[in-house]
């Protein structure tokens, strides 16, 4: 895990709003980067640290919602807090569906925003941790032979060695060796542990 301090990105076309938000967020000890347009933000470097975006729905050129889409497409999964001066229901629904953590209307209540930011950062920390775990499991998974990769879903689906052998048209003894190797390579303490890993790797069980 990185030790870099959490950073809040603020995107609002109104410089005075950016300035005010920067002041507010800095007052609670967080790093703030402000941008007045989406391309500026996209071109900027982002530190490897828990972060979130405070995003105005109305932005010139590329709107907040468009940016949200763009980020999702680029697999940049930063939590988004939408702020708007004139929020309407369809817009907020769309934003929330697209994964926004919060939808706040201006003028903002300082505590609401700060809470939302803390929540988002927390969410990002979790997301980042989860992502780190998945990444570790994926590299372990990569060590498995094709046959072991075939056996894994059958193990996590709770099948007995005999059943697996019959499924794969091999001997029970061979399946037993594969099971031991998969558990070892995946550094799983038990089959239950392996089942949790498979879930994280989004490997479907053979039965389901």
């Amino acid at each position, binding site marked *: 895990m990185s030790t870099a301090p959490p950073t809040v990105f603020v995107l609002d076309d109104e410089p*005075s709003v950016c300035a*005010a938000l920067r002041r507010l967020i800095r*007052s609670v000890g967080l790093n703030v980067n402000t941008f007045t347009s989406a391309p500026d933000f996209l071109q900027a470097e982002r530190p490897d640290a828990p972060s979130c975006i405070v995003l105005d729905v*109305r932005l010139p050129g590329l709107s907040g919602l468009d940016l949200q889409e763009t980020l999702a497409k680029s697999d940049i999964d930063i939590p988004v807090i939408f702020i708007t*001066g*004139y929020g309407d229901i369809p817009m907020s629904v769309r934003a929330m569906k697209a994964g926004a953590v919060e939808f706040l209307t201006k003028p903002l209540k300082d505590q609401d925003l700060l809470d939302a930011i803390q929540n988002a950062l927390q969410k990002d920390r979790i997301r980042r941790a989860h992502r780190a775990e998945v990444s570790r499991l994926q590299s372990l998974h990569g060590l498995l032979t094709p046959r072991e990769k075939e056996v894994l879903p059958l193990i996590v689906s709770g099948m007995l060695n005999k059943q697996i052998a019959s499924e794969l048209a091999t001997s029970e003894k061979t399946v037993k060796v594969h099971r031991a190797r998969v558990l070892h390579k995946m550094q799983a303490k038990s089959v239950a542990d392996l089942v949790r890993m498979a879930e994280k790797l989004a490997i479907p069980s053979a039965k389901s």
Partner: protein
Amino acid sequence: MTFLDLTRIINGLPEPMLLLGAESTVVGANPAAGRLFATSSRDLVGRPFNSLVTDEPERISQYLRLCRRTSQGVPGGFHLRTSNDEPMACKGVGGLAGKGDRQDSLVWLRLLPRESANIPFQAFNEHRRTLIETRKANTEREKAREALHESEERFRRIIEGVADYAIFMLDPSGRIVTWNVGAERTYGYPAREVLGQHFSMFYPQEDIDQGACEQMLDSAATLGRTEEETWRVRKDGSRFWANAVTTAIRDPAGTLVGFSRVIRDLTERKRAEQLLQLQASVLRYMPAAAWTLTPDGVPDFASEQWLAYSGQTLEYVCSAPDAWMAVLHADDRDRAERVYWTGIRSGAGFTMEARFRRASDGVYRWHLSRGVPLHDAEGRLVKFVGTSTDIDDLKRTEQELRTSEKRTRVIVDTALDAVVTMDADGMITGWNTQAEKIFGWTSGQAVGRRLSHTIIPSKYRDAHEIGLRRFLRTGEGPVLNKRIEIAGQHRDGREFPIELTVTAVKLGERWAFSAFLRDITERRRAEEALQTMQAELARVSRLCTVGELTASIAHEINQPLAAVVTNADVCRRLLSGDAPDLHELREAVADIADAGTRAGDVISRIRALLKKSHPETAPLDLGDLVREVLALTRSELSSKRVSVQTDLPSALPRVLGDRVQLQQVILNLILNAIEAMADITDRPRVLLIRSQIHQSGDIQAAVLDSGAGFDPQSQDRVFDAFFTTKPNGMGMGLSISRSIIEAHGGRLWASPNPDFGVTMYFTLPPYTQSVP
């Protein structure tokens, strides 16, 4: 030549001669004078000259005094008491005889037809001097005899001196024995070449051959006197027409002692007579009914045409003053008579139109009869001459014209417009019923009045008069032939708006003007009401337009408010800490103030756009107007992802107009452009606004979009009210925008761009400092 001879010669002269003695009494007269006064020459003797003429006695005696004094021919003129004051020229010759008293000296008066009044007389001065010298040497008795002799001598000298007549004497055989100046002048021979010659030398050969000379002398000897008019031959061989009076001279015993001959060259008279004859025949046969009247109004001549037309004979026409009136139409008689006699009595002549019956078919035809007076050199009325012209066809045309005029008049009178005509002097010549109604003057009152003082308010009168004069001088009339609105004045002084069209027509040499006027008070009222309604409609439309912008505007206001609130929160947080960062606090507070001001600005702008007020015109910078509207729509533009470019030069002249209404137009055009680009995804959404000076001199603004453009069917209709392509549109935007621009004297139109989208243009007249 004896006194008797001379007396005879005088008696034989065709011209009347009077010898006036003391007190201007006639002491001698020749037969011609007797004839002139319709009496015998003997009866004239003893009568005062005054009794023979009608002229002022003072004038007569003045004239005779002059004659006595000068001994020269004194031209003069008298009106004879006979035959209607017949004017007569005369030559008075004085200085005859005398007992040393000029007052009593004799005067010869030659009474002449007027045209020969200026025949020169020989001067007698020299002779008179000789006479006086001789007289001095004589005794009283001798004086008496001398007097007679002198008289004889005088007469002889008179005869010799007469230059206008050839007067000479012949012996009984016809040989010339005396020869006067007139004879020398007439025939061209000096005395020495003719004395002793036979008088036949003056006759043409053919007359001589026929024995004319002998016959003439025979008849003179027999009758005592002959008169002939024949050709005579001058020395140079040329011939002349001569009047010759030959008088036989006999001594007291009756023996023929010779002949006196008085020859007058009639060539001129003959020529004049011929001319006169020609003129008379011209007059008689001229293709017009011509006639002459005596000063009393009695016709004394009528041309053939008149006689043929009327069927009257000349005798009948001349028989009575009213004979010609027999062919007058009964309806015209009274009037014609009145006009005729008024003209005759006043001496001024007359002009009348009357119908006369045509003898050939009994039809009455209109004639224009005009008689003009003829005066002699001294202003005396001699005659009336005149013509009667058949004007029946003209009259008929005139009648038709009059009917058509009458019809026109009915049309004009029943016209809904006031029709007023004016002459070049600015006087009213026509005034119809409607003019009576709207201006309060009746036709009778108005016609003849000065137009400017009748219907034009005093403050415009000078301009009217100056304009009229300028038009008459230069032919330029800026108000002519176009419809203008101006103030008129009612008889009661009330001013009211009128619509006026003036046309100028040249009638002959003079200009005439006709004006069609309409009271537009009601229309003005309606227009004002309409304007109020339009302004209200524009305002409502503006509210709707601004309503469309609500989201954007709310955002515009909300943004600074958001900054204010957040900054305020920051301040509170900083202040609640132990060691507040003062620098940070100061900046936050400054930002609060800035943002608050900005929010206030937005609100003012919106309020200005929404306030209900009467249109106010002021000089405005078009660029400023556009920038302010863009500030309001910035958020709308950005949320619709439209990028804006402007080209608004600051050096353009300003325009005169109402800020709110013009901004409404600009707002409308911008929102339309945004709308037009809403569905565009394959190219940038660009709004370009620029201003420039149009070639007409107006200020032109153009709003370009890169949108879908009009479909061809709706292009013509986009300016119609209630036409809209928007689901929620009222369809009033462009219609109202256009009426706003047109009310500002400009134009608004649309034009498709060569590539994409549409350009909306509008022009406005530039504001000039000068008062129009």
